[in-house]
């Protein structure tokens, strides 16, 4: 718009209509539906009755014993499931950051030609469906799989290392699934980083560590935060890795919600309520981040 032709401006609201339709249809409407369903009465074996109630939230927070006739206490079952999922997602995010940042840095500092090749290599495994990759991972780490066979043949372990059906396996699956979501945004930020800044810092006798902390990190921070959000949020709701690699012995948030819609319990309002609580938690975290970022921006 170098010519300064602003004649399109009055049209802007109308040109934005498709955007609003897409956001409304695919983002707002589902959330509203979910919010409404979470306040409805469960119909026996799936479905809902249009009577408004707080029963789903009551089930989440209040424990009245196995038979529902004991004095009300705080229900820990679902809070524990949330806690477990939060911890898994947090560890996964930290691991992805530790591995993803150097990877992104490495790629961004290659010559422009090879950079594209490295990025391409990062994306290759993701051409394959997540389910297949997760099952393959299970094949690799099972008791008589290649990893354990190799460890035993070089004499590092005497028996198979129990990996499959452990939290470690779940963590490995999550880390492997979401690593590129950390690498790509950080890469985008590092690529724009002006390396003259690092040189200037070196000229002024800043140590490498100080340069990283005081100059690099503040500049690429938006990329790191975007990466953390992109990893943390889906890892929180993941159920493929916990089910396939962890043996589905304990519910995670994702599998708990799935069970309400697909399992024999058929409790749609409760599933919707759990989703709403998850959504609220994520929203609070994001608002908290946005406000911190705004405050720092103002400083």
């Amino acid at each position: 718009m170098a010519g300064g032709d602003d004649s399109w401006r009055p049209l802007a609201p109308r040109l934005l209509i498709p955007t609003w339709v897409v956001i409304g249809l695919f983002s707002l409407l589902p959330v509203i539906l979910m919010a409404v369903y979470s306040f409805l009465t469960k119909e026996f074996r799936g479905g809902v009755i249009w009577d408004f109630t707080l029963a789903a939230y009551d089930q989440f927070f209040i424990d009245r014993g196995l038979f529902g006739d004991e004095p009300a206490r705080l229900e820990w079952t679902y809070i524990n499931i949330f806690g477990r999922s939060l911890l898994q997602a947090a560890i996964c995010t930290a691991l992805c950051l530790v591995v993803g940042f150097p990877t992104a840095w490495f790629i961004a500092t290659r010559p422009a030609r090879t950079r594209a090749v490295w990025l391409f290599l990062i994306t290759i495994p993701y051409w394959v469906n997540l389910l297949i990759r997760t099952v393959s991972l299970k094949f690799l780490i099972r008791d008589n799989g290649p990893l354990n066979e190799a460890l035993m043949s070089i004499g590092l372990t005497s028996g198979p290392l129990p990996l499959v059906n452990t939290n470690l396996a779940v963590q490995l699956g999550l880390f492997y699934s979401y690593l590129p979501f950390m690498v790509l945004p950080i890469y985008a930020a590092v690529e724009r980083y002006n390396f003259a800044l690092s040189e200037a810092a070196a000229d002024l006798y800043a140590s490498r560590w100080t340069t990283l902390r005081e100059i690099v990190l503040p500049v690429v921070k938006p990329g790191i935060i975007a990466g953390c959000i992109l990893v943390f949020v889906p890892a929180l709701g993941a159920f493929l890795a916990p089910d396939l690699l962890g043996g589905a012995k304990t519910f995670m948030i994702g599998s708990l919600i799935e069970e309400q819609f697909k399992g024999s319990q058929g409790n749609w309002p409760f599933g919707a309520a759990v989703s709403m609580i998850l959504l609220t938690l994520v929203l609070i975290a994001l608002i908290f981040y946005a406000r911190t970022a705004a405050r720092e921006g103002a400083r």
Partner: protein
Amino acid sequence: MKKLLLGTCLLASPAFAQGELKVYHWFEYIPQELVDKFQAETGITVTIDTFDSNESMLASLKAGRLGQYDVAVPADFMVGIMANDGMLDSFTPEEMPNLGNIEPQWMDVPFDAGRKHSIPYQWGSTSFSVNRDVYQGDISSLATLFDPPAELRGKINVLDSQNEVLILGSLYLGIPQCTQDRDQLRALNDMLLAAKPHWASFGSDIAKDVLVSGDAAAGMIYNGFSAKARAEGANVEYVYPKEGHVVWMDNVVLLKDAPNRDNALKFMNFLLDPVNAAAVTNYAAYTAGVTGVAPYLDEAIKTSPENNPPEGITPGVFAQACDEETQKLYDAIWTNLKK
């Protein structure tokens, strides 16, 4: 909304008038050759969508897909539930010429007396299998799963299916299904919680693979699935436990508002032909509920120990559909087990 859908169907139907059939079926449960044969014989194009549990099928039909499918394949108790909810259409004996092929014992079943909505597809049993290379001891009791010997601890896969786990647990403790007796339910709850640390994983579709790969040395499983595991080289023995086992029958039902009702009836009639019923059995390794299949069965299926329980075993039980209040208690036990 429903009217709109119906209208769309009516508008769309003339174009495909002669030749469509929409089947809602279990995953990996019908041989493709049989579908091809039906298409060749009738000129009807068959579309199959799959589900992985009775409950998810019910949920999906309830969520607005009733009226899009012609037939589905629910298990015994689910036929009763669907019939009660008015989700099934009925047919007359004249519309189903092969109805007489149904084995007498499967004709007057409690979930569909006189076979007005459904025909047998396959039936079988659910209990457990043990890898005999790993454990050679006594496996005649359900205690093998719920109070396992040291050799099997931490190497057991359990079906990720509330119904089957809770019924086998109830059989082990000798308590009835759909009980409201608190002491019995508490005992079931405590027994399962005590057994869980000995289990390696919960999973239904993986039940065969974990036995073949050696990830599990024992596992709750369906008889045909166990036969397949044995055929794939695992030295597994399927057990008809002394406390009893679960019997189930999958049935092809005519769905309400079926867009191609005539084709659905043709398909159901086709499946009652002994040649075709045998083809399904040879593929799925369960048992057909149709007379006269024997000449068409593979020898290995006909004589498999999974399909031919020894004399004098404790008879199996069908799953019962509990009422809402009772079901709530069982749901609570299941959530408690998996929390």
